[in-house]
């Protein structure tokens, strides 16, 4: 069972620098042996013109890709991930897009259910971002430029007029107030009569 194999696998799996001692402990090998293996791996990558570079930084040893591949990597990987939006994600994104900046408690109040995981996913995909704090201390969210690009919009002005999709156009009130009122009607609280 090769030490080189194990060390290379461990370096591959560790996103952060890892010390030779930690590698020695994990592989149950002598620290000197591990040091030698690391040096051999590093020199091997270099001599064989591999795509990997092994470096010793302050905190330990870390694998990275060879800089020569950066341009190709950007071409391959810097595209945003765009899987289909779930219903919860579309609702949350619509609320942020139309009402920004808007806090998560408000999003939850409008949707009638909590918006935790949808908000998280939208943040990870880079279509919304944090935009400071509300006066009550809740994190506020707004949409990003990536959001505009993914929806083919030049600016937020280009968002479709919600009245086109509005089931109750006769109610004349601010969009936000109406959304909150509809949300409240879905989630009865103690002092409001139930619909």
């Amino acid at each position: 069972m090769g030490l080189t194999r194990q060390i290379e696998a461990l370096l591959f799996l560790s996103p952060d620098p890892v010390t030779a001692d930690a590698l020695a402990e994990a592989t149950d090998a002598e620290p000197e042996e591990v040091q030698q293996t690391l040096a051999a791996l590093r020199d091997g990558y270099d001599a064989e013109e591999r795509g990997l570079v092994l470096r010793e930084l302050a905190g330990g040893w870390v694998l990275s890709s060879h800089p020569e591949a950066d341009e190709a990597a950007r071409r391959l990987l810097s595209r945003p991930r765009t899987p289909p939006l779930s219903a919860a994600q579309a609702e949350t994104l619509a609320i942020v897009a139309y009402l920004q900046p808007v806090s998560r408690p408000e999003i939850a109040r409008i949707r009638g259910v909590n918006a935790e995981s949808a908000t998280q996913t939208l943040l990870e995909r880079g279509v919304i971002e944090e935009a400071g704090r509300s006066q009550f201390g809740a994190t506020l969210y707004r949409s990003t430029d990536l959001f505009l690009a993914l929806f083919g919009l030049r600016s937020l002005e280009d968002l479709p007029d919600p009245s086109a999709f509005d089931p109750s156009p006769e109610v004349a009130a601010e969009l936000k107030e109406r959304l909150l009122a509809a949300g409240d009607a879905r989630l009865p609280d103690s002092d409001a009569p139930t619909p």
Partner: protein
Amino acid sequence: MATRHIRASPLRLVDLELDLEVFAGPFDLLLTLILREEIDLLEVDLAEIVVSYIDYLEAKGELDLELATEFLVLIAALLELKSRLMLPAQENIDELLELDPGEAAQELLERLLDAHRYRGAAEHLSGLLAEQSGYRFRSAPLPEHIRKATVPRTDAVYDPARLGKALGSLLTLPEEVEVGHLPQVKISVAERLAHVRTLLKRGSFNFEEAIPRADRVTVAVTVFALLELYKQGELVWDQTEPFGEITVRRCESRTSAWA
């Protein structure tokens, strides 16, 4: 505050707090969530709700007739809806009910074979997963210099109309509980109580006489009224054999109900 459309409703089931496996909160919130499909009706144990309701009645010590009627209607609607969901396809219900025992067994057999097939597939998948668990994938964020956002090169992949529609659906006020698929129910426990008491003036009557050509909800509400009057000690009933006639008799005094 914007104009609020609060419809008058006889419902006051907010007081009925539920603590179910899939839901904790007031009964009517559960209804709203079911109608909005935030909760899958198939996951809800309706028997548990009935038990909660009975506990609630017990605790309150009095029967709120309006509430009881509403509850019966709603739980009946939920039961019907759930039974429909559990059958393969709506249009096949009648066919299914009319299957002879052989056909029913065949139908059941198909389902058992299906279940067997996917249990086998499940074992196969579990085996694959165990076998593959030694192969680990790297999970690390892209280095900053490669990640640099490239917004200008991004193609539009989503339709903005999706956002408008999502917002429009959020503006919709929740629908009232749909019980339209049930025969129009005008029956209430109060009305049935009065009806039974009128019949009792004769001294005794046959249960069938109390429910001529009645639908099932009416029969159920009438039984409910009988139970209530039995509890109050106003009547007793006899049935000599299963499915036989039920004779309801008036009690002359409260104590005679226990005689």
